[in-house]
Each structure stands twice: as structure tokens, then as C-alpha cells.
């Protein structure tokens, strides 16, 4: 971040350190790769004056597994289980992102039932992802053995119901490998819709219990109001999307603005807040949780009949070939806009992509860390990082 461009925004991420005696006054603390509250392997080097953070330098790359290089070696059909592991809190949306990009590149049609099922899976994985965020946000707030564990235990108990529903359809808790080019592989078993309604009613009835534990809890509000305020202009420039952008007042949601799957047939009420601080992000996510519950019930009832896979059944991995052409497809995940930019005509005689770039919403959110941390204390740093909800598997790829 050049100081010039940051100063233009009125936010100075690296406060000028000339008036500090480098040796004596600043304590340098590593909130390092292995830390209970860094949501994975993320490291921030904090320059502290007493308890106040004067400067924060984030380091990423501790989970860089070279996924883009690996996807250039594998064929289109083999890519789904690889990409599952990127955003391991809502793997459904990973699979959908990459298969939508391949369908755009290879011009394969997706039948209506498959598009409906994809929308339903995306909304249900948004519920499980926001539940996990609320759980870890509680632990960030109150500590593992302190008050935070109540929220952690509650939300994980509800998340297990969603994982059970996915296990009924695909056989796995997460890393499903259920999407392919042209639709889905596993159809919905009989009686599944009834169990979805039971689970969603149970979660809906407990959501106001979470409100008492979080946004109505005075300590929670005291620690999050006015902490880590992200101005909308800076959020847009950083490329931040998703709940963080909506909490800063920008009314942008790909589900409504650029509908994909079957979102054009249902109306999504986009939740926004104006304040842009940690509390606003908490409000947006919890209201999105209730909204996703409503949408999931709508989708489960309105599931049309028909085939679930448009493309020819997959016989051999090099079945789909693309000589050239490029495609960029983006969809709204619980963390923001997950885009996939693919160039066709790669190895295996055109059966694998020439280049595949994944746009990670978490990396854009992490880029805001130096701006948000400066001026706060160490306990604020933990809260701010929790409110950004980064997933390092997706940020580092």
C-alpha cells in the first residue's frame, strides 16, 4: 500500500514511524501462523505502542498448495474434487464456480432441476458457513474456555444438521464432489425435503437464541461497535465483496444483480448495513442466515422434476475438449464474489484448461487488515479478523 494512495483515501495503514524511537518504544508481536484466532494459517506482524496497534503487516502464503498449477495438469472432469478443498467451509460453492466456468467455456446446457438443486445447495451451504463463522466469532470474543464456548457449541450443533442433510444426498460431510459439467451427480433421495424442513425449522427457532448471545449481548456490542470501520470507498477499491461490502453500505449482491443458477426465478432480499464496523458485519451475516433459511424452504418446495445432468454421462476424463476461448464466471459465495477465469486449449489434447485463475474473496478481505487494525488494540485485532471471516485455503490456493 503506497502511503500516497492510502493517504488519498484518508486512511493511513502505516502510520509514519519517524517520531517513534524504533528500538525503545515499539514492541513487535507476531500474531503468527499458528494462532487459535487466526482462522487458519494467517500471520500479522503487529507493531504495538503499549496496547495500541501502530502498524500491521500481514503475511499470507502459509497454505499455498499450487492449486492453479495442479488444475493445468488435470482435465476438466477431474477438477471438481480439487477445488472442493479451497473454501472448505462452503465447498458446494467452489464446485459450482468451477463447473459453471467450464460450462460457459464448453457451452454445455444445465437442466432446470439441476440449476434449482445448485441454488438450494448454495443457500444451505451459506447457512452452514455463517453458522461456523458465528461459532468461531464467539470463541474469538470469549476465549475457548471463557464465555465464547456457548455460542461455539450451539452453532456447531445446528451446523451438524446441515451436514447430515448433505450427507444424505452426497454421502460426505463436506468435500462432496457432487457437481459435474452439465449438472449434478447425486439426485435427492425420497423424504429428504421433509427432513430439510424439520432441520430448517429447528435452526430458525434457534436463531433468536443466537441474537441474545450475540447482537443483543451488551459485551458483544461493546466489543464490536465502532471497531474496524471499513469505509465503502476503500472496500470497493480493495475489491471486497460479500457481507463485508454490504455491511459498509454498498447494496451489491451477485444473486440479485447478476443472477446465476435459478436466482432469477426467486427474489433475494439483500441485507445491508451502513456503519461498516464489526457489529454491522455481524448483523448482515445473521440476517443473511435467516434469509437463506427462508430461501432454502422456498427452493425445496419448488424443486422441478426433470433430469439432473445435461451433458453426456462422464465416461472418460478427457471427454470434454476445448481448443481455445476464455471465460470468466462469478458467483456469490458466503464470503463474496468467487470468480473463475479459465482459458481453454491446454494439455491432454485440449482436455485440460490452459490457465485457470480463481478470484479469492478472502484474499481481498485480508488485504483490508492493515487499514482496519491501525489504532485499535490487540483484542480488537482478534475481533476484526474474526469479522472478516477469511478462509486461508481459498486465500492462498
Amino acid at each position, binding site marked *: 500500500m503506497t502511503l500516497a494512495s492510502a493517504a488519498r483515501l484518508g486512511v493511513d495503514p502505516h502510520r509514519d514511524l519517524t517520531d517513534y524511537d524504533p*528500538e525503545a*518504544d*515499539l*514492541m513487535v*508481536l*507476531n500474531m*503468527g*501462523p499458528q494462532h487459535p484466532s487466526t482462522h487458519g494459517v494467517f*500471520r500479522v506482524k503487529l507493531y504495538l505502542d*503499549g496496547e495500541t496497534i501502530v502498524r500491521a503487516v500481514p503475511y499470507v502464503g502459509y497454505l499455498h498448495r499450487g492449486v492453479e498449477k495442479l488444475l493445468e495438469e488435470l482435465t476438466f472432469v477431474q477438477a471438481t474434487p480439487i477445488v472442493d478443498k479451497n473454501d472448505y467451509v462452503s465447498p458446494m460453492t467452489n464446485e459450482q464456480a468451477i463447473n459453471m466456468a467450464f460450462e460457459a467455456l464448453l457451452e454445455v446446457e444445465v437442466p432446470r432441476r439441476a440449476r434449482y438443486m445448485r441454488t438450494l445447495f448454495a443457500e444451505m451451504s451459506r447457512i452452514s458457513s455463517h453458522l461456523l463463522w458465528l461459532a468461531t466469532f464467539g470463541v474469538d470474543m470469549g476465549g475457548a474456555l471463557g464465555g465464547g464456548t456457548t455460542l461455539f457449541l450451539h452453532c456447531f450443533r445446528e451446523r451438524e444438521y446441515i451436514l447430515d442433510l448433505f450427507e444424505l444426498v452426497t454421502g460426505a460431510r463436506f468435500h462432496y464432489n457432487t457437481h459435474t459439467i452439465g449438472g449434478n451427480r447425486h439426485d435427492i433421495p425420497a423424504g429428504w425435503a421433509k427432513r430439510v424442513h424439520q432441520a430448517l425449522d429447528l435452526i430458525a427457532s434457534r436463531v433468536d437464541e443466537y441474537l441474545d448471545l450475540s447482537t443483543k449481548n451488551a459485551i458483544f456490542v461493546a466489543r464490536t461497535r465502532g471497531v474496524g470501520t471499513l469505509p465503502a470507498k476503500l472496500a470497493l477499491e480493495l475489491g471486497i465483496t460479500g457481507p463485508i461490502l454490504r455491511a459498509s453500505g454498498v447494496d451489491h449482491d451477485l444473486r440479485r444483480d447478476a443472477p446465476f443458477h435459478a436466482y432469477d426465478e426467486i427474489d433475494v432480499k439483500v441485507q445491508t448495513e451502513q456503519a461498516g464496523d464489526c457489529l454491522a458485519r455481524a448483523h448482515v451475516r445473521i440476517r443473511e442466515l435467516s434469509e437463506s433459511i427462508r430461501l432454502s424452504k422456498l427452493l425445496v418446495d419448488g424443486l422441478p422434476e426433470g433430469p439432473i445432468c445435461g451433458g453426456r454421462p462422464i465416461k472418460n476424463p478427457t471427454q470434454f475438449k476445448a481448443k481455445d476461448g476464455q471465460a470468466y464466471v462469478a458467483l456469490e459465495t458466503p464470503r463474496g464474489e468467487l470468480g473463475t477465469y479459465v482459458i481453454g486449449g491446454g494439455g491432454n489434447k485440449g482436455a485440460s484448461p490452459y490457465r485457470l485463475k480463481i478470484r479469492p474473496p478472502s484474499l481481498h478481505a485480508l488485504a483490508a487488515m492493515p487499514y482496519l487494525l491501525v489504532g485499535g488494540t490487540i483484542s480488537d485485532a482478534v475481533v476484526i479478523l474474526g469479522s472478516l471471516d477469511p478462509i486461508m485455503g481459498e486465500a492462498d490456493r
Partner: protein
Amino acid sequence: MSEIWTSTLVYVLVSAVVSVSLLWVSRAVRVRAKRSSELKGATYECGEEPDGPAWVRFHPRYYVVALVFVLFDVEAVFLFPWALNIRRLGLFAIVEMALFVAILLFGWAYALRKGALEWQ
């Protein structure tokens, strides 16, 4: 008369035994590694190398806050035994403790007005 002293004697004995044995037992059953590298003693900082000195000059406000805390902590030490025996001590003790607390409240008001408790 003697059984009062025996109970206090037992009390002192038991507390001594418990505290000493806590230390001694953990010392006795300690475990020593046969081979350990020098990293065992390195400071733990989330897996990273610590950077820069830890002996840094802190802002004086921490000292003032600690001072005010100690002041009211000691006041609490006087309050506890007083609260236990308030029925036996009668009205005189209540007035006495009220006076004591009032003086300390005056000190607290002074600290508040001088802004010692402000954090930034």
C-alpha cells in the same frame, strides 16, 4: 479454650501440607527429555521468530491504573472480615466503615476528575 487453638492448628497444618505437596509432587514426578534441541527453550510466538526487544518503555497510564487498582483492592481486604462480623460489632463498626469508605470514595472522585482512569 484449647479446642479453638487445635482447630486453627489443624487448619494451618492442612494448608501447609497441601501447598507444599502440590509443589513437591509435581517436582518429584517431573519428566526429562533424553534428547531435545535448543528450540525447546526458544520463546513461543505462534511459531515465528520473536522480533525486537520485549523490554519496551510502557506508557505511564498503566502505572496509574495499577496504583488505583491496588488502592481499592486493599480497601476490599478490610471490607471482607468486617462484613462477616457485622452483627457482633454493632452500630459503631458500621459508622466506622462508612467513614473509611467515604474517604476512599473521595480519593476515587479525585482520580476520576484528574482523568487517571481515562484510557487513551
